[in-house]
């Protein structure tokens, strides 16, 4: 599938194409396959390596080392300090994500249009809906079957049902999933229809080329027009790629603004308006074995509190991350490890109101992002609901993981009067969904790209990823990113 591996390039290299796409995650893959299917020459440049299913590692460390950016330990500066987690591999974060699929909720779309009525024509919901139908068919998106769900998912269903919260099996982009519980380390059987298993091979079949292990360092623009990109291989060799028609940034909501800034393109609120879904997790001990590293990694969700900006998911992890959720050290940690098969782990994603900033550091993106007081309250409420569901489902004990709360809770009544700590550092959270750093909008002063996804100041330069989203979505973003990227590709094709 790979035309050129940057590891093999040790001298300066010049390439050219009609369109250069930076990044091979959902946004880049969708742009590439849409354009390639129309006979347009496409070259996708990806910083990460190409990894086959057989090479996907089982343990967290090896997976983080080979598939994630900075080992999944990129840290945002703020309160609380949170890692932002991204894939860095051909297929982007889709290779290591939970395969959860959601259409952009109509109420979120209405918010976007209310804030900028021009989006009503630019992103008509009817058209998005039609794209969602296509994407769901292409990627085999369907609800998780009970047979492969495994106890971690089924217990969440039980807890939600007892509490009367709306819940359902998660619709995922998988085909022939056997519930091996390794989505976050990359599916070892290729059953997840991540981009490396779906749209990228399709793009290549239609003539697209993929270059891996080349980091794009800047967009080349001349007289207000994008004409290509410059990049570098691991050995330091320069790669210059000319684009006769367009350059499309699909490097993610953190890396795309960094590229614009590094290219001297400071137009509009680039890097500002960073929004996210910070997530917290709760572990619980059950009498019966859960073995949460088996079964569909993320197979069940609770959606009844979405209006309160909360969404809950079963969260199957590798045993390393489950163990990190336990409280003790020494003999007590070893006892927990021996007992780890009895732990369940569920997560809550918060549609936070906070906004942050992405800046370009000397080598890496610098993200500053602090939760607002209301976000902390929402998180505490979410953690409480997770604990309640776990106890209702039969957990002997739950571990809320909020500093200042009891470490171990065995009765729902013990949760009733716990106040939400106002100290952000009491919360342990991470971010996996990011948006808004190159916002789309009709007014150049408030937006980086126009309603046709094209940069307001540079002709032929497009942004296709969730940087362009006006707000966060409150739901898992991959399918929305795919749909918007398809729309972006249509504009590029029409040039």
């Amino acid at each position: 599938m790979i035309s050129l591996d940057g590891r093999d390039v040790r001298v300066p290299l010049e390439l050219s194409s009609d369109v250069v796409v930076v990044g091979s995650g959902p946004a880049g893959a969708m742009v590439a396959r849409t354009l390639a299917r129309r006979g347009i020459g496409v070259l996708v440049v990806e910083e990460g390596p190409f990894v086959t299913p057989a090479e996907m590692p089982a343990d967290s460390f090896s997976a983080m080392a080979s598939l994630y950016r900075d080992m999944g330990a990129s840290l945002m500066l703020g309160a609380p300090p949170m890692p932002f987690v991204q894939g860095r591999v051909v297929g982007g974060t889709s290779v290591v994500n939970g395969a959860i699929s959601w259409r952009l909720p109509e109420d979120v779309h209405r918010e976007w249009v209310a804030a900028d009525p021009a989006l009503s024509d630019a992103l008509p919901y009817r058209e998005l809906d039609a794209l969602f139908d296509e994407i769901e068919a292409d990627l085999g998106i369907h609800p998780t079957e009970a047979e492969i769900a495994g106890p971690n998912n089924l217990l969440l269903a039980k807890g939600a049902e007892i509490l009367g919260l709306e819940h359902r099996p998660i619709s995922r982009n998988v085909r022939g999933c056997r519930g091996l519980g390794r989505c976050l380390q990359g599916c070892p059987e290729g059953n997840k229809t991540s981009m490396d298993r779906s749209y990228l091979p399709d793009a290549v079949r239609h003539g697209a080329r993929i270059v891996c292990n080349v980091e794009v360092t800047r967009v080349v623009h001349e007289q207000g027009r994008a004409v290509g990109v410059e990049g570098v291989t691991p050995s330091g060799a320069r790669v210059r790629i000319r684009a006769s028609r367009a350059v499309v940034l699909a490097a993610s909501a953190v890396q795309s603004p960094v590229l614009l800034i590094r290219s001297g393109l400071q137009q509009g609120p680039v890097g500002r308006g960073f929004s996210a879904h910070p997530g917290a997790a709760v572990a619980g001990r059950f009498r019966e074995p859960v073995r949460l590293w088996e079964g569909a990694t993320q197979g069940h969700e609770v959606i009844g509190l979405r209006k309160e900006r909360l969404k809950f998911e079963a969260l199957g992890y590798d045993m390393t991350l489950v163990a990190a959720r336990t409280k003790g050290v020494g003999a007590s940690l070893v006892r927990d490890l021996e007992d780890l098969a009895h732990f369940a782990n569920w997560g809550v994603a918060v549609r936070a109101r906070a906004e942050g900033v992405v800046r370009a550091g000397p080598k890496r993106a610098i993200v500053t992002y602090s939760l607002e007081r209301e976000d902390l309250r929402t998180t505490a409420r979410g953690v409480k609901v997770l604990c309640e569901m776990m106890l209702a489902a039969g957990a002997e004990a739950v571990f809320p993981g909020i500093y200042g709360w009891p470490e171990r809770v065995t009765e729902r009544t013990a949760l009733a009067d716990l106040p939400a700590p106002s100290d952000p550092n009491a919360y342990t959270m991470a971010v996996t969904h990011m948006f808004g750093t190159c916002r789309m909008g009709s007014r150049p002063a408030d937006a980086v790209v126009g309603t046709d996804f094209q940069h307001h100041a540079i002709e032929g330069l497009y942004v296709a990823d969730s940087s362009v989203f006006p707000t966060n979505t409150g739901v898992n973003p991959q399918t929305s990113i795919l749909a918007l990227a398809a729309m972006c590709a249509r504009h590029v094709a029409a040039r």
Partner: protein
Amino acid sequence: MLRELITDSLREVSTRVHRAAIAATAPSGWTATERAWSEALFAALLPAEGRLPGLATLDLDAFWVRYAEVAPPMLRFGLRASVDLLALSPPFVLGVPHTVLGLDAAAREALLDQALRSRVFLLRQLATTVKLVGLMAYLRDPGVRARVGEGS
């Protein structure tokens, strides 16, 4: 206090002498003292117990080599700072005039435990970093994974 700290230093020197015989428990580039501290902390984090081997008894060479290749500077700095500060923290955390090397196994465990539960956010972060990296190294071992996976 001074006498105890000198004793600790002598212990560190003697540990250096024995280093070659012990499985690597720290990234390359660390001083011998830091390696001894790291070994003491990781051994206290995951001692041999029941069916599971101690972290310090595993061969972690391959882990540290890969860690050096891929860990971002922030994590590398964070782990080193965590080990250094925790090793020197017993006077503040436990109220005893020792580095971690002057503590017995139970006190080392108590040090990590109290740091993890500390009211001071920085201390919690230091101990969490050591715990996370220690678990990554530990649960990379196929034998350990198999034994943890069996437990039910």
